[in-house]
């Protein structure tokens, strides 16, 4: 492509226009994206919203002609500054990518080449599209790093991706995308894998750059909070079609489609909280510690410990939900496992109904297993793919000796399934036939099967789409009312807390930095970390 003179586009210019884009499966011809059209304007962020499988990522990849072999562009056009990208030869397309249209991807860690220094990776883009070489090249990269807010850019140049934090990796991605000053930036879920506090920073950066560089940004996300905070215009994609387009203001105040409405409703309502239910404690943790040994040296002696949980005390009442909030690596899941006696505790005490259960042996723990149950994060891996749903639910009943005859068991499974809004005949199916939300409901049924007093919910909704998430949470709340069970609800997402928890504890680096009633924490946080977490929560 000949090098055109690049002028700073003025706000409102249409930089990229997608028309009737259709993408089909190469093998079956089934349409994944069904003739969608939209356009991006300079200086504006256009958000494409949808749940997983809605075709939003495919749309972005198709625009760059980066579809995997299994997918095929079967119609429509993508124009950049009036030039039809689909009509270009592959060789010329290579000059468009990175130069005029740049892209950033969801998981920066895997999207960066692990064996190249980040500096070189950014420099490669420049090398491909400009004449910069040598020291000038390095200088340019460093200044880019500076622009996207990477500390010590000189040194970071020679870092490998894994040596940077998640936020910094995403910044490198952005620097790479912006290196050749493209007109259009496509950001495919740029913040999904990041912790909430970082998420906000990255989004702000994109927002700033859009303004300062007059970029046309296509932001692809499933998170309505992100949309609300960042985008100018919104389009909702559902099963390969654009069902609604509007400006952000209009969209949030007046969504036209029921589906859009559901998405918006998933945003937290920070005005309603649940009151503390009871004060008779069911589970009490006192200064619980879980340490993992660090071995070093010739003899592999234990020289130190990783303090995954370092002195946590809390209490959960009967029929109460305690939300344990923290970012990844804060030790909240480990704590959950310690309560389940799946992880030995290094100190402190765990009392259940007043009895010490911390450090009990396998046999001694057995009676309590009935009363403490668990729901795991990933519904797909938490069920044996080779067992039927009925067997999965029955397993606990059998091994914990809930002396039931096969008929009774069958009836109970049926009841449970129906209770979690599934059909009785689902008992004969296998896990892979269900969706994530359904599986999580089965997991709930499995936990309920042994009549527990306490269920430890380890991020039960984080793998689910927003709309489904709400259903599962509602079910949990309903069941709590019905059976009076308590939940220890482990989550990284503060936004689901309000309608769910009675009490909230915030964990950071193995310590409980703050705890209190949901209202206290969400309206009047004391600890700065809690405040930072809260700041990242989108609000209506």
């Amino acid at each position, binding site marked *: 492509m000949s090098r055109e003179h690049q002028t700073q586009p003025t706000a409102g210019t249409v930089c990229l226009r997608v028309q009737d884009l259709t993408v089909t499966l190469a093998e079956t011809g089934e349409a994944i994206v069904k003739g969608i059209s939209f356009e991006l304007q300079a200086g504006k962020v256009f958000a494409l919203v949808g749940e997983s499988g809605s075709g939003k990522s495919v749309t972005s990849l198709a625009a760059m002609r980066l579809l995997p072999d*299994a997918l095929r562009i079967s119609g429509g056009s993508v124009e950049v500054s009036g030039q039809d990208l689909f009509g270009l030869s592959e060789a010329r397309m290579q000059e468009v990518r990175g130069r005029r249209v740049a892209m950033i991807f969801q998981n920066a860690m895997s999207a960066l080449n692990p064996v190249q220094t980040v500096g070189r990776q950014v420099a490669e883009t420049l090398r491909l599209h400009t004449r910069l070489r040598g020291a000038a090249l390095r200088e340019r990269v460093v200044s880019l790093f500076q622009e996207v807010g990477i500390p010590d850019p000189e040194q970071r140049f020679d870092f490998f991706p894994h040596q940077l934090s998640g936020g910094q990796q995403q910044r490198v991605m952005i620097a790479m995308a912006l290196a050749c000053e493209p007109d259009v930036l496509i950001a495919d879920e740029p913040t999904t894998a990041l912790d909430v506090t970082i998420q906000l920073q990255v989004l702000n950066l994109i927002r700033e750059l859009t303004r300062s560089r007059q970029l046309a940004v296509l932001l692809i996300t499933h998170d309505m909070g992100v949309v609300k905070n960042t985008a100018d215009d919104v389009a909702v994609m559902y099963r390969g079609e654009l069902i609604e387009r509007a400006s952000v203001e209009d969209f949030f105040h007046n969504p036209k489609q029921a589906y859009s409405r559901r998405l918006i409703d998933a945003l937290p309502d920070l005005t309603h909280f649940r009151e503390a239910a009871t004060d008779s404690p069911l589970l009490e943790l006192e200064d619980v510690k879980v340490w993992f040994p660090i071995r070093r040296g010739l003899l592999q002696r234990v020289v130190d410990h990783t303090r995954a949980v370092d002195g946590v005390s809390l209490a959960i009442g009967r029929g109460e939900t305690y939300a344990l909030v923290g970012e990844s690596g804060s030790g909240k899941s480990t704590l959950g496992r310690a309560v389940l006696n799946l992880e030995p505790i290094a100190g402190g005490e765990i009392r259940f109904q007043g009895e010490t259960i911390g450090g009990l042996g396998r046999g001694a723990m057995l009676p309590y297993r009935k009363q403490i149950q668990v729901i*795991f994060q*990933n519904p797909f*891996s938490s069920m*044996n793919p080779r067992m039927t749903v009925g067997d999965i639910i029955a397993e606990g009943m059998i*091994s*914990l000796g809930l002396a039931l005859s096969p008929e009774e068991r069958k009836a109970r499974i049926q009841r449970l399934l129906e209770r979690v809004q599934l059909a009785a005949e689902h008992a004969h199916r*296998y896990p892979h036939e269900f969706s994530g939300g359904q599986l999580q409901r089965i997991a709930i049924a499995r936990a309920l099967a042994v009549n527990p007093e306490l269920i430890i919910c380890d991020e039960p909704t984080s793998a689910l789409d927003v709309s489904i998430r709400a259903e599962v949470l509602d079910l949990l709340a309903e069941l709590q009312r019905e059976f009076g069970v308590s939940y220890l609800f482990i989550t990284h997402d503060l936004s689901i807390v309000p309608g769910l928890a009675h009490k909230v504890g915030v964990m950071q680096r193995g310590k409980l930095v703050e705890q209190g009633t949901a209202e206290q924490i969400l309206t009047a946080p004391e600890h700065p970390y809690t405040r930072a977490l809260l700041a990242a929560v989108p609000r209506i």
Partner: protein
Amino acid sequence: MKPVILWSDALIFLLVISLALFFWRLRRDPQTRERWAEVFSSRLGMVAFTVIAAYIMVALLDSLHFRRALENPESLATEEVFYDNKVTSVFDVLTGGMGERFERTYSAPFALLSFEKENIKDADGRDIRDFPPLRHAGQHLSHPDERAADILGKSVRALLWGLLLCALVITPQWLLLRGSRFPWLASWTTQAVILCSAVWMVSLSRHYHILGTDQGGADVLFQSLKGIRTGVLLGTLATLVMLPIAVTLGVMAGYFKGWVDDVVQYLYTTLSSIPGILLIAASVLLFQVYIDLNPDFFAVGMEKADAKFIALCFILGVTSWSTLCRLIRAETLKISQLGYVQAAHAFGVSHTRILGRHVLPNVVHIILITFVLDFSALVLAEAVLSYIGVGVDPSMGSWGNMINGARSELSREPTIWWTLTGAFFFMFVLVLAANLFSDLVRDAFDPRTSLRRASA
């Protein structure tokens, strides 16, 4: 007739039965079924499977052994029936005595005359030195020039018979499987090719030596066919033998961790650090000595050869179990971190139950992949071992022994190429089919590859 059940016969039938049971049970498991469906939905998979099935059929037929009853001479008063020392298999009978038509020594494929000159008497009764006619080739021809036409004619007739047989075999399948989503046509075509060539081989071998004869005058085609049983059995039994050890140890190491893991790791590191070929050689010699020292254990020579063969399978299995054990240990480690095992712990499910219901069924795919992958490697290994002199018993037909015996024949002028060719062809087809099939099985069952496809 008195059936003879050799150890390897028993084992192979046991294997077939257990495999059948296994698949019958798995039938209920939709995930596995889906994966198998994936394997069979490719035409290549169908063809490869049909070829392998044909080989296995031959191996099974060749594993039905019996001893013929000897006719008692009339003078003998006793009613007791005595049996021939020679063990015959159903396959031998089906080939129509292909293995019983011996020449004196080498002869080329489809030759009418021996490969070597001999003193013979000519029409006038004078001694001359010439290539003598073969005993079992072209006897029905009145003139050697008719040979080409005769072969062609017989081939056409054989082909017609073959097609008739195909019709018999394939029609019921067609009626049964019409409208199935699998590419059965590929399988039927392969079956047709195999059946036709089988009919062709059997019928032509009555009049000619299709692949010539070897030094001792034995039919090379027959020997190559007899090699099938050895190859197939070695490929399957060796893995079968090692399975229990490898699976038990691997699962225990991965599940219990701690000292159990240390011991198992020590065991397989030690074993795998020994150069395999030395270990195999040493163990084979060991078994040989044992068998030599206890000749009374085995009534018939064939049983002795068979015992050696089983021993070889066992040794090959034991020396290669470490790879499988390592894989299973790694997989078990991974599985025991998974939600469902954790959940089982939370439900207080006992160790044995967790191992049996959660861990084992989920490592089966590794066993399966190893099984098919090792199969071809083992068939190939047999040839190499025979070269080193620690292969199967020389009295047992095997491709390795054929190659080993025929190596020097290449240096003959004119070259004797047919023994090598026979062994090469039958071995190549089996190994190729097995390799292709194992590729498909791995693609279908290896979570890594299926993940890759899902992401694409």
